[in-house]
Every structure is written in C-alpha cells, then in structure tokens.
C-alpha cells in the first residue's frame, strides 16, 4: 500500500494536479505524524500503518488558504472522508479544489496502545465512500474490530448519577481546547468560548465554565459530528468526549433519521425544516 501511496502522491505533484498534499510520515522518534508535501521527491517519506490516527481533514481549510489557489491533496481514511464531506456540505471546502487519496483502513490504534481508537469498532467505511484515487488493501492482514454490542452502562444510570459522572469528568478539563482544535468540524473563526464581550462562558477551568464549554461544543456538533474520535484522542486528561457526541448523534438519528458525513448534498437536519415534522415545542 505504501508504495502505491507514494507513487500516487508523487505523480499528482509531478503533474501539478495539486500544490500540496497532507499525509503521514515518521518523526525522529519513529512516531507517525502529519506531513505536508509540496515536492514530488518528498513523497517517499510518506508512510501508512495502523497508527495513522490523525484526521487530516482538519487541515483542509488551512491548506487551501496556504496554497491560495489551485488544488490540494489529502490522504484520507473512510472516517476522514466523512469529515471532508461535512466540510463540503457546510461550504468550508470546495470539492473541486480537493483531490482525495482514499485509503482502505481496518482500524487505527494510538501509538503504544493495544485497543483500537474509539471510533473504529463497528466502522462502516473501511473503504472510503468518496475518493479520487484509491489505495486498496488487498492483503488485509488485520481484522477490523467489530461493534461492541453491550450498551454503555452510563445509559442505565439515573440523571443524578450521570450528573455526578460528568461533574467528575468535566472537572478534569484544563481548557486547552485541543478537542476543538483537532476537530475538523470546529472551524468557527471566532469560537463562542473565546468571546469576552460579552462573555458567554467563563474561561477559567472551574466546573461551571468547563461544563458550559463542553456542553456548548457537544450541542454545536449535534448532527455534524462525524465521530472520528479525534477530540477524545487529543484530550490530555482523558475526558470521554465521544460518549457525549454519540449521545447527540443518537438523538439526531432518532429525531431526523440523519447521519452526518454521508452526502454533501443533503440538507443539515438542524438547518432544515420539513412541513411534516412535529413541532410541538412551538407554542
């Protein structure tokens, strides 16, 4: 796969089809890290393995700004393609300016960890649904992790117990905003939490501010989160943010029968109104 990937990237840069490609390389500690390639000869530094956890779609708007005009390429797993789809759908990225190098993927693990990333079990997009070039995994020497059937024990708990659980989790937050910065769908030019005139939410790492911040983010991602799991991976204090995002996704699925990241032509459920929708909350 690596060879084919390197060749593909080298060729699209050579043909000047794209000006810049986001992919993965190894840093001096032999850990996978994102890399941005401009010259065809640099393509040989690209790698592909089970530690390519990063969702490079997060970089797309910045990459398009960087090149100013023309196209950019992106090495993308199925979950990354869902984020690219979301960005196109929300008019943040022009489909015509992106060349997607889709990667077959059967699960990713953080370096030094045994278990798969939180979004991998039950993944439906081992082969990216959209791509311009596909790098197939013909051998597939890794079995994709199956969906965990058992329900999250948190669901069975009382509201008081859940409140206690989240209080404990949110009290760990140090407000580094790594969850926001790593998220492909968090692209607001000014985040609500950064506003100080008026200040909607305390910038201090106190429970009220932390609760405000994390809840605002969860709600703003409802119907938009593509469940790539990057926020939870990036969190330095291990707040299980995907529990929140999944909960919101379930609500959206139930209310609107909608799954984010499937089509850039679909209207966004919370931006769209259908006559037949029940609207009992409007009095």
């Amino acid at each position: 796969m690596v060879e084919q990937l390197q060749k593909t990237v080298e060729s699209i840069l050579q043909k000047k089809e794209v000006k810049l490609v986001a992919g993965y390389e190894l840093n001096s500690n032999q850990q996978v890290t994102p890399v941005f390639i401009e010259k065809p000869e640099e393509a040989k530094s690209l790698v592909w393995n089970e530690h390519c956890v990063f969702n490079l779609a997060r970089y797309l708007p910045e990459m398009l700004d960087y090149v100013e005009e023309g196209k950019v390429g992106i090495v993308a797993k199925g979950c990354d393609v869902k984020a690219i789809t979301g960005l196109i759908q929300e008019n943040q990225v022009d489909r015509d300016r992106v060349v997607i190098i889709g990667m077959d993927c059967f699960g990713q693990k953080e370096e030094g960890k045994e278990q798969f990333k939180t979004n991998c079990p039950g993944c439906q997009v081992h082969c990216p649904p959209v791509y311009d070039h596909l790098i197939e995994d013909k051998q597939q020497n890794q079995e994709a992790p199956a969906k965990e059937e058992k329900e999250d024990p948190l669901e069975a708990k009382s509201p008081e117990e859940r409140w206690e659980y989240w209080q404990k989790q949110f009290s760990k937050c140090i407000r580094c905003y790594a969850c926001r910065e790593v998220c492909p769908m968090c692209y607001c030019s000014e985040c609500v939490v950064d506003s100080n005139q008026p200040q909607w939410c305390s910038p201090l790492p106190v429970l009220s501010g932390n609760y405000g911040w994390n809840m605002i983010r969860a709600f703003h991602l409802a119907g938009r989160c593509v469940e790539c799991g990057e926020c939870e991976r990036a969190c330095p204090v291990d707040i299980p943010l995907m529990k929140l995002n999944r909960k919101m996704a379930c609500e959206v699925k139930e209310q609107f029968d909608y799954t984010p990241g499937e089509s850039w032509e679909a209207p966004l459920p919370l931006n769209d109104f259908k006559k037949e929708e029940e609207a009992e909350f409007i009095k």
Partner: protein
Amino acid sequence: MAKDVNKILDRKELEKLVEQLAGDFKTFAPVKNEDGHVSFETVDSFDQVSFEQTNSLFPPKELFTPQYETLYSYGENYEIIPANGVTGKMAVLGLRPCDARAVRIHDKVFDKDYRDPYYFSKRNNALLVGLSCNDPGSNCFCTSFEDGGPHSVDALDAMLTQLGEDKWLLQVFNEDHKVMFEGIGMEAGDKELQEKKKLAEEAVKKIKKQLKLPEDLKEQFKDEYWEKASLKCLSCSICRFLCPVCYCFSLADDGQQRYKYWDNCGLKLFTKEAAGSNPRKEKHTRFRQWYYHKFEYFQKREGEPLCVGCGRCIDNCPVNMDLTEVLENVPQ
C-alpha cells in the same frame, strides 16, 4: 563552611520523612489519579506518592503560579478587597531537576522590574525536595542546557536519589533546613556518594535527544519556513500549558473579582487588541512566537533559554510535533 548533610534512608525512613514534612508543611508530591495522570497534590503519607514516572503530566508550576487565582474582589460599594495572600509553609517533594530549573527561571521572571507578590507569597514559603532522574524519558533533553542534567540541583533545598530497591540518598543543601533532617536516616558515607555519582553519569548517557539550536534565530524571523512548519500545529494549548516554564497570563474581571489566569501565545485572542486589530493574526506568527520567546528573546535577555528540556511538549502533542525537530530544521 558547614558540613553537608547526606543521609541514607530506607522505605521506612522515607515514610517518616514524608510524615515529618506533612506535619510541618502543606506537602505536595507527584500523585497518580484514576486515569494514570500525575500531578502535584497534597499528601500526608508516602503511600500516596508516585515516583515511578519521569515527569508528571502537570508541571509543578501550578503550585506557585496556579492556572487561575483571584487577585482581589469587589465589595458592595465597589471597594477593593485584597485576596487573602497568606500562604502557609509549603514543601514540594519529588521535583525533577528540570522542573527545579524551571522554578529558578521563574524566580527571575517574577522578580524582573516588578516583584510579583502573588508568586513570591507562595515561593518564599516553599521547601523544595528534588528527585534525581536515574531513568530519563525518551523525550528528555535537559543535558542540552548549561548545567542541566538528570541530577542537577537548581533551586533545590534538598534532593533524593534512589540508590537501590530500598535505599535512598538524601542530600540537604540549604543550611536553614539541615536541622530538620537530622533525626532521619543514617549518615551516608563515601561509598554512597560514589554510587550516586555513578548513577548520575549513567543517567546522562541515557539521554538520547539533544537540542541543536540554530546559530542565530534573528535572521530567520521572516523565513517562509515558519509558515510551512506551522501547518501541522493545531494551535491548542497543550504544549504551553504543560510547559514548566511558560508563564504568560491574562487578567480579567467577572463583576465580583479580578483574576489572573494562564494565557498563551498560541491563542488567537492573546494579542488581540481592544480596538480589534491583532498583530499575530496568522497561525504561523503565533507558532513562531513560542520558539522566539524561548530561544531568541529570553536567551538574549537572560542568557539562557526559556526551556528546561523536560520533553512534556513532545510527549503530549496530539500530532506528535517535536520542538527539537522544529528548531533543528530552521534553515541556516
């Protein structure tokens, strides 16, 4: 010159030391939480202390310059009520040499032009007991700096070194505190001091990472390198918040109080002015600032960089960015 106090302790004596410290001081030491993350918390027994890890996730800077603190509050008639600045005696146990170096740097920073009473009210009451690193981490690069190393004693009043499974060497450097440690352990001999010396030499050899600073960063300020290099950076605050020496802060009011809280150069709002303009609007200018403050401005002003080589920024970067690589690749 007074004689150095060098003591040999076993686990029982170490427990006694912690109990004695906790009796006289509010004692902080590295403690592991349920998630396996280590921060400096109050302890009253050695059982709570975690010495296994090299560096704590959270640097001990938060003991002297907490992530947020109230400077003063407002009364009913908007009169100013000073915050209760009285801090009791504090002991910090298990400070790694790099973190101790950071404390020494902060002592300079917070006494430059203006002596920060909030910092020194805590710092002046603190006894620092270090812990030598016999097994430095893979991202440690403390030996890149003058006098820096896994057994260096910057700012420390005393230092512990583990010599064996159940054998510890306690060295007390601060005259004022020598009496306090007199009742603990047995006198160490030359043999133990030799053992410690050998461990220190071995520890230095275990450090694989070295920071190779460019000759002069001044000339590279406008280089297009920074824009390309910064593409990967997420602009989150992990490296700055977890850095033991990053000290920038902001002030704000919430109607009842004025408080001071950690801020950092990676955030868009950091340099945004009241009138709306922002001199560091682009990501690469904020990215570059971090390196320039540490290795150009501070270096020129104070004769040493604002970095101690603890490796936390490398260990915890969500996209595996490596500070030493970024600096090494600066075009000459």
